[in-house]
């Protein structure tokens, strides 16, 4: 293996190191790459929105297939830009698409998410707490008691009677155990991202290690 002669690899390596330099402190090189990143991301967003949504909707759906009803959401969407008008009689119109957005979002949450995120989780907790296998039995008891305790932690407007007020505390411990497990899991997956970058720097760029890419 030898050091890369590709301009693209050198550019990518330089940018990776520039971004990592931010870990030490804010500096002009980090700032330069940060602004390039933001600019490229904005440009990419505009182009992909035009190519993936605006163009196919206008050229294929409206002109080729004749779905003229799509003009209505387009016109409503264009009202967003009235906020740039200084005329007060016009710029309030930008609230119409925003109201649509919020309304549609709420409707989707109420109709689709309620069953998937709530009822399915409630029914999944209907577990038998007596089982011949002691491990399954303990697992089911922890599951049911854990869910009830965590739910009790989120009562905001009334307190549980004295004998039951141990449940919110237990619920908090259950959550912390869950968060600890999630933390470890995510840290390990982030390590694989770091390893990918190190493989690129040490392999593709400097040629110190063998890479399969």
């Amino acid at each position, binding site marked *: 293996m030898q050091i890369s002669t590709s301009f693209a690899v050198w550019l990518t390596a330089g940018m990776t190191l520039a*971004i990592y330099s*931010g870990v030490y*402190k*804010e500096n002009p090189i*980090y*700032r330069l790459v*940060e602004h390039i*990143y*933001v600019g*490229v*991301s*904005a440009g*990419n*967003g505009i182009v992909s929105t035009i190519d993936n949504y605006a163009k196919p909707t206008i050229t294929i759906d409206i002109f080729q297939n004749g779905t003229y009803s799509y003009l209505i959401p387009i016109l409503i969407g264009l009202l*967003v830009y009235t*906020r740039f008008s200084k005329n007060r009689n016009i710029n309030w119109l*930008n609230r119409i698409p*925003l109201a649509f*957005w*919020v309304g*549609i*979002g*709420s409707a*989707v*949450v*109420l*109709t689709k998410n*309620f*069953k998937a995120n709530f*009822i399915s989780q*409630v*029914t999944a*907790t*209907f*577990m*038998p*707490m*007596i089982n011949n296998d002691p491990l399954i039995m303990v697992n089911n008891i922890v599951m*049911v008691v854990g*869910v*009830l305790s965590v*739910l*009790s932690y*989120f*009562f*905001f*407007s*009334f*307190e549980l009677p004295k004998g039951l007020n141990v449940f919110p505390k237990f619920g908090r411990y259950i*959550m*912390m155990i*869950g*968060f*600890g497990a*999630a*933390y470890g899991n*995510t840290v390990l997956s*982030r390590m694989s991202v770091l390893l990918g970058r190190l493989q690129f720097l040490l392999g593709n760029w400097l040629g110190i290690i063998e890479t399969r890419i």
Partner: protein
Amino acid sequence: MPIFEGQLITMIAQLILAATIFALLRRSRSGERLPKIRRLAGLDAIDEAIGRATEMGRPTIFGNGSGGLNSAQTIASFSVLEYAARSCARYDTQLIAVSYVASVYPVMEAIVRTSYLELGKGDSYDPVNTVRFIASGWGASASALQGTMRRERVAACLFMGSYYAETTMITEVGANLGAIQVAGTANTAQLPFMISSCDYTLIGEEFYAAGAYLSKDDVQKVNLVALDYAKAITVIVIIIGALLATFGDASHLKNFLNY
């Protein structure tokens, strides 16, 4: 296709919840006092964080993550933003509210501008630098947010909303700067990172309760009380379901809930 296929119980549950909210609201408007909401340390810490930023003469930064206007978390974050904007305007502390989502930006701008104007501090509101659209996409926005926090040397960070993989990148910078950080999200995968790097974290529904807690608005408070009733009913249903599964058959109850 029937309108309510597999959604009948969902609809009935929501109608009951709506009726409860309506009844509680009527009671509240007739002068009856609503139950007191328990203390939430994370929300009390917002005043502490802004107070510290005021003393240090450094800015407070507010971010509400990558959620759009169809995200309940984004809507919940607006109450915290309004509260933070009012506190910053009152104490003449610089507020930097950042948005990653184009549709959320104008709403944030309207909230902050209105808060400043209502307190008679319209002159302190900077239309360019107070509310900023920093970037789209979580990677670029995390990078831009890190840079903004470091350059402006923020003393208080309020991160309330739908956060994803960028959480650690931004909260670690805040911790590194020695800023007081108050965060809240309902994205459970990100909560461990907020808990480990922020001073106070609002866990899940605590974050949704923020609006009612901070605003003292009766409508929001009534919603929270009604949701407490819903949770109490859920606890009862789970106990019945678990007992049926243990000593009999819970399939009828499961089928009923999925009807």
